[in-house]
């Protein structure tokens, strides 16, 4: 791969990671003022804030790599749903509190493994973003793990909701571990992470928590894929429509 190719690939990769962070951060921020009690409202807001901060770092780096005058905001606000490359699991609606916390567990557990590797990237900026992110993510995981335990092993209703959330989300986890050609190339180059190698570790950890929470591991009979190619659910268009509405209504303005 030529240097120029590698740079373009790194840019694309960085945007994917930025999209993951922004889209999930946006979803979590929808919980603000909707939490089950005040302390949790504030605490979950911190998680959203971590994600939005992370998105800014990725997009900021993307702007640096692109070096064509585009800013972090241009990447966030001017790309359409076909151009977004986030994993599908991040764009699904917030659902009820159990759904959100189960998603959080699945994603946090993935991010823990992922960022732990990205810290070792040959790309110093990605490594630095990961080093900051891993600290946040360990805390996120601590929270989501405890919530899944409480909800799974709480009342019959909370257990039903947590199980339903898990069953509805499970099919979206497969694509997390299926790196495409670009991701494989970058992993080989020591820049990206080979997520296929994270699967068994992830599965073990998730299964352990679910077991403790008395939840059943879903039957693996369905899988939805496409986030990394821009093949999204219908939810993303609405999420972006809202997120980008003001920015796009006033082209070229500074805020």
């Amino acid at each position, binding site marked *: 791969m030529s240097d120029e190719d590698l740079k373009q690939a790194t840019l694309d990769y960085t945007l994917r990671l930025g999209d993951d962070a922004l889209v999930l951060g946006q979803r979590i921020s929808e919980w603000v003022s909707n939490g089950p*009690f*005040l*302390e*949790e409202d*504030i*605490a979950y807001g*911190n998680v959203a804030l971590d994600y939005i901060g992370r998105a800014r770092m990725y997009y900021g780096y993307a702007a640096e790599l692109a070096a064509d005058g585009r800013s972090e905001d241009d990447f966030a606000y001017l790309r359409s749903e076909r151009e977004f490359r986030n994993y599908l699991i991040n764009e699904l609606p917030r659902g009820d509190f159990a759904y959100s916390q189960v998603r959080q567990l699945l994603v946090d557990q993935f991010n823990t493994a992922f960022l732990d590797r990205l810290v070792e990237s040959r790309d110093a900026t990605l490594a630095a973003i990961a080093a900051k992110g891993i600290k946040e993510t360990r805390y996120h995981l*601590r*929270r989501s793990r*405890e919530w899944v335990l*409480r909800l799974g092993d709480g009342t019959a209703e909370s257990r039903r909701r947590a199980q339903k959330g898990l069953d509805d989300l499970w099919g979206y986890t497969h694509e997390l571990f299926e790196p495409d050609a670009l991701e494989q190339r970058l992993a080989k180059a020591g820049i990206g992470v080979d997520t296929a190698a994270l699967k068994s570790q992830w599965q073990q950890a998730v299964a352990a928590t679910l077991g403790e929470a008395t939840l059943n591991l879903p039957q693996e009979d369905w899988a939805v894929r496409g986030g990394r190619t821009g093949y999204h659910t219908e939810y993303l268009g609405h999420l972006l429509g809202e997120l980008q509405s003001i920015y796009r209504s006033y082209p070229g303005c500074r805020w």
Partner: protein
Amino acid sequence: MTQERLELFEVFIRSKRGLDHKHVGSLHAQDHEQALEYARDCYTRRSEGVSIWVVKSSDICASQEEDSESFFDPADDKPYRLAGYYKLPDPVDNM
């Protein structure tokens, strides 16, 4: 609709190494573990702390207002326990 019935915890924070933990407020949580996490999220959003204590409010034993006189007034007449009580001769201006 059930109201929130979580327990009340008092939060103490050490703002930096070398200082005492100081009472900063209270919060509601299910148990100590969660109280600690919420204290982190609610009381250290601006790097206010390097260490947190949480204590169940019901576990605090506090002196009572009606005991104040017998608890604290007797110490009022012992000024000789304070350095300022002793006059130093002028040539010795610091001790």
